[in-house]
């Protein structure tokens, strides 16, 4: 079980929940569970979401494990110059 924090716009799509407890061992599972529970998150996930695990931002490593007790944030995926 990990606790995931969603940023503002994402929380709005997750029925106003900004913190969610979820059973997931890696980023892939996390995304699957989240879109099962909150279908409105799906389009936002397609646009791209980054996951911060204990302060380090992961954009594409979906196999990245979520250690228990880790601080997990979902953040928008950014553009760069």
């Amino acid at each position, binding site marked *: 079980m990990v606790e995931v*924090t969603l*940023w*503002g*716009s994402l929380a*709005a799509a997750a029925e*106003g929940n900004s913190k969610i407890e979820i059973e997931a061992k890696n980023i892939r599972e996390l995304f699957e569970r989240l879109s099962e529970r909150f279908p409105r998150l799906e389009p936002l996930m397609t*646009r791209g979401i980054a996951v*911060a695990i*204990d*302060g*380090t*931002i*992961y*954009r*594409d*490593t979906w196999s*990245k494990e979520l250690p228990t007790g880790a*601080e997990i*944030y979902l*953040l*928008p995926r*950014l*553009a*760069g*110059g």
Partner: protein
Amino acid sequence: MNFDPSHSKRSFSSVGTRPIRPDGVDKVTGRARYGADFNMPGQLVGRILRSPHAHAIIRKIDTSKAAQLPGVKAVLTAADLPDLTNGDAAMYDILDNCMARKKALYDGHAVAAVAAIDARTAKQALKLIEVEYELLPHVTDVDQAFAPDAPLINDTIFTTGVDPKPDRPSNVSMRSQFGHGDVDAGMARADFVVERTFKTEQTHQGYIEPHACVANVCSDGTADLWVCTQGHFVYRQHCAELLGMDASKLRVTSSEIGGGFGGKTHVWAEPVALALSRKAGRPVKLVMTRDEVFRASGPTSATSIDVKIGALKDGTIIAADATLRYSCGPYAGAWAEVGAMTAFACYKLENVRTVGYEVLVNRPKTAAYRAPSAPMAAFAVESAIDELAKKVGMDPVDFRIRNAAQEGTKASYGPVYGPIGIGPTLEAVKNHPHMKAPLGKNQGRGMACGFWFNFGGQTCTDLNIGIDGTVSLAVGTVDVGGSRASLSLVAAEELGIDYSQVRTVIADTSTLGYNDMTDGSRGTFSSSMATISAARNAIKILRERAAQMWDIPVEDVTWEKGHAVAKGETHGNLPKLSLKEIAAASGTTGGPIAGHSEIVADGAGVSFATHICDIEVDPETGATKVLRYTVVQDAGKAVHPTYVEGQYQGGAAQGIGWALNEEYIYGKDGRLQNAGFLDYRIPVCSDLPMIDTQILEIPNPNHPYGVRGVGETSIVPPLAAVANAVSNAVGVRMLHIPMSPPRILAALEA
């Protein structure tokens, strides 16, 4: 991926040195080939017709006269680019931006294109295309577009990020929010509060090389595209999708690139060039004019930002609040969101809230410019912080040091920081001789901090060892500022050979796996990681080959300083084998030796900088002169320090231009009035002083050498550093950027 990217303490022999870049001689002798320096036999010249109107329905386009002009080989409208985007809204916007479908959405929006035997004929043909427009009310200002009664740009846009969903469309495509704590309660406790509204104008990356490409589509469905881009793999993907081609049939070669800074991360004219070539059955060269670059590529957002910050008597910031409105051009964007994430990222804050609004306007589609969106937010926040320090009665550097984020701080955008460099950059600034340089009359000093995320992303490299033992490294991230030199250094370092033994080239899309773009400061960060991984894979093979040559178990072979070394008592007396010797024998030990690597380079370290600026203002004319400028930034590890300095200096110069001069000026008619370097004035040599740099190295724990990205952060602090300097020089808080002479005079008179 069995590659461990974590940072390990080590000493370096190549990394950190400053050799001459491998592409240097070609570039100083005029031989390097940029976008417009390539030609194909039988090539046609492509040109694009652009809307002179800011907002208009396209009633009808009559191309018949143009098509009949002798020498015209293809005429193209949106009808030739059917919508294949399959409900992908972002791709549809790209398609519509490449060639307007129903409406022209800004001055400069492409509406038709031709390919002809020469430029003269192509120009003439454009004049023969008749477009019937029905003009619509337009809006180009971000605050006006935000207002509820503004002309509506896209009636399918309903603000997302708000609950419940709005019942009518608006120009606000998204609301986003970040933060934690209780801002209102915190603000109520504050002893001092600063509340201000700031504005920044739209700027352009201003790369000196206009967009250019040569497209060649064959009747068998294969195609080639030569193009200046920051990401040829991404261009391939987008072009193939928009044109309904298999990506593998389209080979994209990235030319030398004459600057990008984010502006060459999007396709603009390339799909049009390919479509023209397909229609004409001949290669088509399409080069934008400077006027087109300004009117129809991707400038920054214009912004309007409210900031409110409260502090206690002891100098602790107790609450911070910001509302940010960013223009995103006529399509939905996510620019204010980034501004909202970065605005307060430098500080340790208990109570913080940022709200971003994406605002549609009738201007070109916004694109990234270095650390996109962060400079404007930093301008607003760092200006308010300076004012607040004054109110509290603290020195601006000390006030920032007191409130600076550190390892363990919960960032204003959410997560908790690992080891970061904001504190050290501030300490370095505090002790920098620049801070003690004397100031004269009408002169002021300002400083400011900045933050950027940096990315990693998908990356792939091939490291091939020739039979003479020299190394070719093929990478897929476009070299925008010397990364071939840096990556050669990394390969040399890891293999234990000399820099001169490595040649790095940028591979085309058919010879290497997919790579993300060179953006987000990722070029050297991610490709160096992939290069280290590829080199380690090659070393594994080198050890195996040495073991074969010695006929001993591979476990007994180590790799040290470019040599295989046998260890263990039984074969300790074997003379070591050099990479050259192993390579020479490779034909009989199992064939070619190479190391490949395909990785997702995640874990880019966040980056911080602090800048100092001294400026003199002429109170009579409002003219400014930058006297001294210093950049202090954390690089993690500087692979090639000279090019790191170059990134710092270049970003600072761009930021100074943004702060003092550069802006898009639109007339009441919605037309851009200064689409050229004469009236959109970027800094020239005589506008600037030497730009002093100090590189800090706080290793990124997620990179083997500790590298962080360095390319973007340097543009974040200058707007605020310059504004603080001007404000200190004239004694009036500057709220509107650029601080052109008329604006400074107006502020003095107000």
